[in-house]
């Protein structure tokens, strides 16, 4: 059984070698003549303003977390919505109640978020 792994190992070795050798070859053989324009950040032609390593307000983080939370909710709803129409009556009711419980739980979270002012920017 283990023999069947040999081709995989060979492929792994070759791909790693190929990547390492090529990256290093270009830096070894290529000419290196940097100037100010070349080293500046590429911003699609616009002059760069300051560095990218700035401290962001924690508010962005809050919005991002909440976005993921409620985005996941929608992700779960899509497959349910698609398969809902094909179900028979009893299962339709059953799945509807299940998903309602799921949404109500998230709704409580949403009310909590709103009332706590997590979505207020100021």
């Amino acid at each position, binding site marked *: 059984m283990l023999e069947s792994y040999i081709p995989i190992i060979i492929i792994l070795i070759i791909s790693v070698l190929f990547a390492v050798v090529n990256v290093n070859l270009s830096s070894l053989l290529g000419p290196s003549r940097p100037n100010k324009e070349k080293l500046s950040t590429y911003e699609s032609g616009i002059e760069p303003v300051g560095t990218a390593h700035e401290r962001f307000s924690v508010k962005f983080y809050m919005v991002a977390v909440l976005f993921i939370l409620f985005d996941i909710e929608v992700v779960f709803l899509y497959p349910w919505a698609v398969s809902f129409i094909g179900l028979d009556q009893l*299962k339709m009711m*059953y799945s509807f109640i299940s998903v309602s419980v799921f949404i109500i*739980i998230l709704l*409580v*979270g949403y*009310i*909590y978020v709103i*009332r*706590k002012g997590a979505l207020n920017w100021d």
Partner: protein
Amino acid sequence: MIQIKDLLEVLPLLIIAFSAIFILLLEVSIKKSETVIFGFSLIAILAAIATSFNYFNKEMIIFNQFLRISNASLTFSVIILISMLITVIASKSYIEKENVNFGEYYSMLLFALMGMMLMIFANDILIIFIGLELMSVCFYVLAGFLRLRQKSNESALKYFLLGAFMTGFILYGIALIYGITGTTNLTLIFSDAKVLTNYVFIIGTALLIIGFMFKIGVFPFHMWIPDVYDGAPTVVSGMLSTAGKIAAVGTILPIILAVNILNFKIIFSVAAVATMLYGNVIALAQTNIKRLLAYSSIASAGYIFVGVASMNEFALRGIAYYLIAYTFMQLGAFIIVAMLEKKDDGSRDYKNVDLDFYKGLGKRNPVIATFMTFFLFSLAGIPPFAGFWGKYYLFFAAIKSNQIWLAVVAILLSLIGVYYYLKIIVYMWFSESLEPVSEEKFSFSDTGFAATVLAVIGTILFGVDPNLFFSLFKFVTP
């Protein structure tokens, strides 16, 4: 498909889940809601305890075989509920004192409680995992609840990093077990005797058990305990060391008993001895009472593993008895430390948690010192307190499984423990006070005091009448 009547079979779980969510709504809809929430969570836990007793002697597998209600799991869940009840009562005055009186605290406690109960009732490894994560995430938040205190933040971060790493172990173990058996259902996994000798399966189970040994704090996976318990809010430390451990023990015990591989028995014995030795010896050198209690909780994990290593019909009885005794005495000791702690003054560290502070406590505060003495006697295993019977039944299980050496070693090592517990008692009653007497301010209306009284009642009640426990939890005496 899940039937409606299945929902009635897990009423305690539902009560806790709904009240945890409902508390969030209460928190945002009522002004000054903390007292309401406190009362509400108390009622929820009491209702869950009351309903739990309906299900004893009714072994059943429900929810598409996802949950399994048995006497053992109900016993563990009731012990956890009791631990949480005492924690909630003690928390009120503590979080007021620390200026973090938020309703979310109780919600977090109840969510953690729900995770723990889910874990214990689980009959499917994935449900165990969900419960474990629900519990752990709430624990990380609770450990860092004193957000302005550096110690608390440090504790939460350490707990989170190590806990997340160990979750990886558990998940890898689950993956291997699933890979071999093709199912995550515990009944199906252990129904095939042939699979139990498969090496990959053994490795998977070992990883799973290692992850839970971390949660219980067994040597060599104990390193996080002193730092986390030291930095976490004191009441939360008490809760982590009781409810958190009970949940992990209650979850992994059926798995260990089902696997029952001889080699594991030796490993568990060695781990138990190492844990007891480490916990007891290092505790001797501690000068901070929270760290001392943390090391004593490591030693307790060792005693529990003496029971786990014996793997016979007496093991469950001994472990359950020790855990309920441990809940009362360890939680009680932590709550007393919490009550005596100095009010939040914006400092980074906790004040009044040094052992020196306890010198002469008997003169300054005789009632509290008496209660502390009870808890410490119980932890040391001196009759007529509950800790004595807990150790008795554990060591009895070890003797019955022909591991007399283990019982002898455990007794000798618990003698080391007696020294540092008695040291505090000597400090309290026979040393001159280093603190000015006038500084003591302590009122009996403190909810921590009510919690301590509950813990004292438990410690003495289960110490005086051990049969009470067995009749309460419907144990068939072997």
